[in-house]
């Protein structure tokens, strides 16, 4: 990773200051016109927006499914749908939210939009591959929709054999759809790794890389190492259904626990594909709105990599009661706790960044604080589930459901929304209503906790997950939870409303409304099709708020664009003053 940080290799460049243009006439949104130009664009920003549209669509679908589930659970027996329908709905809610929303939300949406901007690059390393990965996502989605209309899937998002090998419905179309989707994820990861290595603007050495980039870098590594295993798992499962190859199906001599190893080897690291980009976003937001240098840069950067690495060694904690050997249980439990340490370090570093800062409670910052609170709860309940004897009691109960939602929704979705509100002015050049954003956030916070806190209690009391009917003692918890879900629904509708309003009638945003030092804010809002009119040169860390803004807006003075990623640069004083 540390390719060259040697000071002997410093390159001298002629630089001058480039002040970002305010409210430019032409930008990436209007430089190419027409639907066709959008559909065939290789611009990373537009591809990011197309992903944004797609995941918003799937989030809506997944959200509606969630509300259907919660409504059905208002009564202990049948309320309005059959058990089979219920089983399909929870399967689709899980599969859609995870594979179509959470996995692409970090890298493919915000990552795509922001990564080349933060690196000072014109685009990702392989723009056409980037577009291809979007269409692979679309094809995967079509397969899944096909599966839904031709019989549905009722296996749960985990597709455990032998149930998934024998049940009715169109499981094959679904697994093939997600198999295809995996390639979209792999190609995004591939693109990001190469871009971060090869396309950094002059001066962005590894220790000046924004933490958001470190987050995406760690994520990309997980994507390329874990996703192929998902691909082979789903391919084997598809073959199990198509040909009966018997590797996972006990009726043919196979072993269902082996399937679980395969599945979780991907699906546990996948949790980190979802959450690690969130860590990057939170680092950016907290530093910007505290207007203060980030505390423990290397601790945060390296803990992302550590989480990515250790995340590969803990998959068996999903299988403590599955019938794996007790030796494996012990090893997995031990390693699981080790993931807690780098995660804890991050939380404390973010807190320390706020200490003696100049904190501006704008919407993204409030989202970041909500993230800190909810994600910490998610983390602590994860410790609970990692403890072997307690997990025996809590495994496959609502406790796990609540923990997962605290991590994924309280963690990743809050971080994603923090990032979306943070970069929204950059994306569209428009501001949104602070007031309505905070109202919606308050509703979301209340609704979220109302929905999932009771589920911790239900789970500890023994309410199993994936239950259509339940015993009467849980009814009040379920009803409370359902009301919370409705409140969240209202919050999201409100959010859709003010964001739409911002798009149509929003006040124009300045190039740097938050006063950030990061590179993406040193170009126009919205940026030009090629991001920068000049080649940016970076001499300070991305969080050096104690240095003047002028030092963050440098670019190569000559027409020569001297990208040489990874080389340190030195600018002589006179040139700086010229700027």
């Amino acid at each position, binding site marked *: 990773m540390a390719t060259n940080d040697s000071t002997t290799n410093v390159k001298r460049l002629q630089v001058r200051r480039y002040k970002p243009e305010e409210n430019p006439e032409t930008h990436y949104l209007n430089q190419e016109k027409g639907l066709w130009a959008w559909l065939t664009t290789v611009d990373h920003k537009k591809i990011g927006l197309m992903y944004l549209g797609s995941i918003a669509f799937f989030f809506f679908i997944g959200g509606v499914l969630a509300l259907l589930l919660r409504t059905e659970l208002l009564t202990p027996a049948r309320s309005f749908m059959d*058990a089979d329908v219920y*089983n399909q709905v929870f399967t689709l809610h899980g599969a859609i939210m995870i594979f179509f929303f959470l996995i692409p939300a970090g890298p493919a949406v915000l990552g795509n939009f922001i990564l080349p901007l933060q690196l000072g690059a014109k685009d990702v390393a392989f723009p056409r591959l980037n577009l291809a990965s979007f269409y692979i996502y679309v094809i995967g989605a079509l397969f899944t929709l096909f599966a839904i209309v031709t019989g549905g899937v009722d296996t749960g998002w985990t597709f*455990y054999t*032998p*149930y998934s090998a*024998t049940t009715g419905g169109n499981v094959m179309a679904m697994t093939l759809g997600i198999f295809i989707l995996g390639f979209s994820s792999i190609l995004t990861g591939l693109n990001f790794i190469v871009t971060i290595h090869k396309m950094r603007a002059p001066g962005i050495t590894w220790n000046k890389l924004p933490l958001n980039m470190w987050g995406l870098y760690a994520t990309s590594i997980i994507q390329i190492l874990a996703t192929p295993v998902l691909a082979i798992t789903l391919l084997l499962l598809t073959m199990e259904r198509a040909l009966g190859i018997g590797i996972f199906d*006990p009726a043919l001599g*196979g072993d*269902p*626990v082996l399937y679980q190893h395969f599945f979780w080897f991907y699906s546990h690291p996948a949790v980190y594909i979802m959450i690690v980009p969130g860590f990057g976003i939170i680092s950016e937001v907290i530093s910007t709105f*505290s*207007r*203060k*240098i980030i*505390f423990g840069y*290397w*601790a945060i950067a390296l803990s992302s990599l550590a989480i990515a690495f250790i995340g590969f060694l803990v998959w068996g904690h999903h299988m403590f*009661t599955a*019938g794996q050997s*007790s030796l494996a*249980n*012990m090893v997995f*439990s*031990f390693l699981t*706790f080790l993931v*807690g*340490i780098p995660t*804890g*370090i991050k939380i404390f570093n973010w*807190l320390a960044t*706020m*200490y*003696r800062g*100049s*904190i*501006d*409670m704008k919407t993204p910052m409030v989202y970041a*604080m909500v993230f*800190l*609170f909810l994600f*910490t*709860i998610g983390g*602590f309940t994860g*410790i609970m589930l990692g*403890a*072997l*004897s*307690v*997990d*025996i*009691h809590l495994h*496959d109960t609502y406790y796990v459901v609540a923990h997962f939602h605290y991590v994924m929704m309280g963690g990743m979705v809050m971080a994603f929304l923090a990032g979306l509100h943070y970069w929204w002015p950059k994306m569209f050049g428009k501001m949104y209503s602070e007031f309505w954003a905070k109202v919606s956030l308050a509703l979301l916070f209340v609704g979220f906790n109302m929905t999932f806190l009771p589920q911790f209690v239900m789970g*500890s*009391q*023994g309410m*199993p997950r994936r*239950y259509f*009917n339940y015993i009467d003692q849980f009814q009040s918890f379920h009803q409370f939870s359902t009301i919370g879900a409705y409140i969240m629904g209202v919050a999201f509708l409100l959010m859709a409303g003010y964001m739409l309003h911002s798009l149509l009638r929003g006040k124009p945003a300045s190039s740097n409304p938050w*006063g950030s030092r990061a590179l993406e804010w040193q170009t126009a809002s919205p940026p030009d099709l090629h991001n920068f009119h000049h080649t940016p040169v970076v001499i300070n860390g991305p969080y050096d708020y*104690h240095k003047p803004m002028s030092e963050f807006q440098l670019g190569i003075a000559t027409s020569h664009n001297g990208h040489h990623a990874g080389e340190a640069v030195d600018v002589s004083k006179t040139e700086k003053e010229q700027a």
Partner: protein
Amino acid sequence: MNRLSEFMLPPAKSTTAEATDALFHFINVTSVILLVGITIAILYFSWKYRRRSDDDVTPVIAHNSKLEITWSVIPLILVLIVFGWGFSGYLNLITPPDDAYEIRVVGKSWLWEFHYETGHVSVNELHVPVNRPVKLIMSSDDVLHSLYIPDYRVKMDVLPNRYTSLWFEATEIGESIIFCTEYCGTAHSNMLATAYVHSAEDFETWLETAGSADDDMDPVELGERLVTRNACNTCHSADGSRLTGPTFQGLWMSERTMEDGEVVTADENYIRESILEPNARINQGYDPVMPSYAGSLNDRQIDAIIEYIKTLQ
């Protein structure tokens, strides 16, 4: 504390439950202390260091090794405690005492069969003696299931190709609910059973008389009881409503159309075949998901069920 504990956890009715609960409470208390600390810090900082003017200058605090080592090492120690605690509890949970009383469990979609050494089979009823370790040796007939008794804090998956086991020692006479916690299809949430804990003498009496108590019962009454006891009613209603399987109401001597188009009269032979070899002929519009009852119902019991179905016109 006790109140809170009752709110959070089901009553602890096994010898191992208390140890598990102690760790549960330890993690909860530690977590709440830390969470409150973090939350207060967030709120306090965001008020104390709120932005006062756009020209605020902040100090350059890039890192602090002492602090960082502290907040890495303390959590590390805490989680190692939790690991050790959880692991020792787990060792206890997977090591049944040598003299444990053995019961065979078979999970089928969607019922539990409990086989006793006397050859008696009870469906969805687990009878155990109090204050005596009981070991369940479990297997599945079809897909994965998982046997979970919240009151005892025990759970183990039930697999089709292997035997798995769990053990517990009930400490109170009474009843506890048993759930299936591994998703297994349509009636997953109806795959419930009850654990009945008897005193040692009552358990012996139950074991000797179980099955024979039915001898002098009226066939229709016995049939009705068997339909409940064997969980037939999970999938077959008595009131005409459609569940996973066809309803029993009006079944007797009706004309049934099979998947392959064959039309069969639901007579004695047909119903007997449907119980012993459920997948030999499948009613049109239904899935072949019923487990076989060969071996768990004897002729007299099948006759009783047929007598009962006859009454549901």
